[in-house]
């Protein structure tokens, strides 16, 4: 499996987010005023909001090339979370957004990864 590239910077703490990829609950509102809940599936995948700040143009090009290599959100790749250093099989949940920071030499980026 393809592995997410190693960059010269680590992800920002600010803007980092984690949550369940989907709500695994079946919820039924009953006439009696109470709610009946059940789990839908046995496995609960997660998703991560990953943010990098002050990327060099080389790092930006590396991420762009990787995004093209996995065909955006189509391909699955291996990614190690900096929190706990656990490796997951993930895919991009959407296109990667790059924002210029004052000059073309510095870029911010953020993307969402969802567990396969």
């Amino acid at each position: 499996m393809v592995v997410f590239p190693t960059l010269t910077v680590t992800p920002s703490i600010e803007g980092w987010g984690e949550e369940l990829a989907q709500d695994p609950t079946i919820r039924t509102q009953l006439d009696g005023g109470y709610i009946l809940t059940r789990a839908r599936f046995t496995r609960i995948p997660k998703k991560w909001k990953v943010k990098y700040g002050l990327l060099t143009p080389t790092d930006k090009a590396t991420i762009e090339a990787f995004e093209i290599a996995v065909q955006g959100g189509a391909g699955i790749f291996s990614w190690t979370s900096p929190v706990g250093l656990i490796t997951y099989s993930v895919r991009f949940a959407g296109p990667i957004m790059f924002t210029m920071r004052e000059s073309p030499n510095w870029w911010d980026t953020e993307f969402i990864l969802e567990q396969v």
Partner: protein
Amino acid sequence: MTLPPVLKYLKNEIASIYPWLFLLDITLPNSALLHFVHNNEDITIPTTGVTYTKFPFQIELPEIDSDGNIPTWNIRVDNTLRIFETYLQQTKGAVGSEIILTIINAQYLSESYVDLQTKIEILDASSDENWVVFACGGRNLFRDIYPVYRYLANHCMWRFKWHECYYNDPSASVVYGDDGNIYIGIQDHLSAAANKPVTGAIWWKYWRLANRKGISGRSPAGRLNSSISTWCEGENYTAGSETCKNTLTDCRAKNNSLRYGAFIGLSQKGIKVV
């Protein structure tokens, strides 16, 4: 309904972290078995060792009314990867396949789910780019032959090569069953444990005892005939290529008129129900 106590408890709970899952056991007309679970990971049942593959499908529960309509279950199976398309082509829409639908609780896989099982049959199939839709239901009484026997003058009522006809097609597969008798194929199929003569659960749909008139099972010395093989799993067995016109002339040509299933003395005009 006599559910095990733990399942009854889970069913009545106001909140439960253990999901109830739908399992499908599909037996295709060529005896291939498919096991699917409506879940996001595979499930293995410890008692049977069967692994159910995660697969997207939806079940539309049947409408039951008092108009005498036969309830129909629509099972929609994902077709985006065209996995089922091949099976549909190979098995003429998989019509006649048996589906066992079971609802289980993911935490208690070893419990008895007999009361949460429904056995249905595929009556019709259609597909588009997203879904294969199987219209399923019980046996359609309108398709049953009634009266059971039709007394026709020159049209045999027996199914060609089957148990009543008893004609041995020379091009059909012949094997030794596990009781030592010789069996002849009466339906083309891929062999599996369920159709093994004679310990398989539905072997009689695929095999019958060979008519010993045309087949010699043992040599004069009492040894098994080496040209007849022992039944093996995973083989493509055939019922042969011969056809029948259901007429007495054709039956005589096959030297099988002793078992001719029509009544030649009746008038050949019209139909008589006796």
